[in-house]
């Protein structure tokens, strides 16, 4: 059970992980669109509501940028024969815990917090909203760390990269993917959204 939570890629990769991962990603995008939760390559935040296609664009771009960067890094740094479907499939599967973040908005009263984030108001929350914000932040951080840990395992297994070389290439690749995806979102937001 512990292995399935923290390193499922010992048992699942390739097409199976891709199909399950993409199904999970689809669900995350749908749920997050209902509560104006936006995802990047790794980042999560509340923002103004946008058309549904933009949520899909964000989800797909976030997954694709990390997949492409990790595949390139694997080709450069690994001596193993890497399959592209393993890199993309395990990367998609690693994001499944984000479903829990998308579900939080249905469970906790986030109205004032969302409004503050969307309108960039100064912090003006009551005690109960502050408590909710602390709980949401704590849970989101825990799940985000879990997702990044899974993405590391996905990269390490699919590209056969371990130790310092694997860790550095993963960290730098993740940062590059986040930058590229945020740039892409900026251009889409300013050129395609009214």
């Amino acid at each position: 059970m512990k292995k399935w939570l923290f390193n499922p890629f010992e048992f699942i990769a390739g097409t199976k992980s891709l199909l399950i991962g993409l199904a999970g990603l689809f669900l995350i995008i749908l749920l997050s669109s209902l509560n104006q939760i936006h995802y990047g390559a790794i980042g999560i935040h509340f923002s103004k509501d946008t058309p549904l296609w933009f949520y899909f664009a964000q989800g797909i771009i976030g997954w694709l940028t990390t997949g492409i960067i990790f595949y390139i890094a694997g080709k450069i740094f690994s001596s193993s024969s890497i399959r592209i479907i393993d890199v993309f499939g395990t990367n998609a599967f690693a994001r499944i815990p984000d479903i829990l973040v998308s579900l939080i908005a249905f469970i906790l009263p986030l109205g004032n917090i969302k409004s503050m984030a969307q309108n960039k108001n100064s912090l003006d929350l009551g005690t109960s909203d502050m408590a909710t914000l602390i709980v949401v932040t704590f849970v989101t951080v825990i799940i985000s760390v879990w997702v990044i840990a899974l993405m590391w395992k996905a990269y390490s297994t699919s590209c056969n990269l371990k130790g310092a070389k694997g860790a550095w290439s993963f960290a730098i690749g993740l940062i590059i993917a986040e930058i590229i995806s945020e740039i892409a979102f900026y251009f889409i937001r300013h050129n395609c959204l009214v």
Partner: protein
Amino acid sequence: MNTLVQKRIPQGCPSCGSRIKVKKLSCDQCGTEIDGSFDFPMLAAFDPDDQTFIINFIKTGGSLKDMASIMKLSYPTVRNMLDAIIEKVKQWEKKN
């Protein structure tokens, strides 16, 4: 009550860690004994799990996909295990 104990061939000298050689071979059928100094075959230098992997790899005709199915592991995990064995072979060849 006799219980069959599976003995493992030592991988190196338990005293100084040096490479082990085979000194005596014997035939259980006729009692012939051969005394000499014979090099250990490379495959015997691997631990039992690696030896099992190599045998299964040969039996599947070198198919990592079939290996993954037999071992109930993912394809990249099995590939990584094979790469680790390849690395051990290269290290052994370098030493010998």
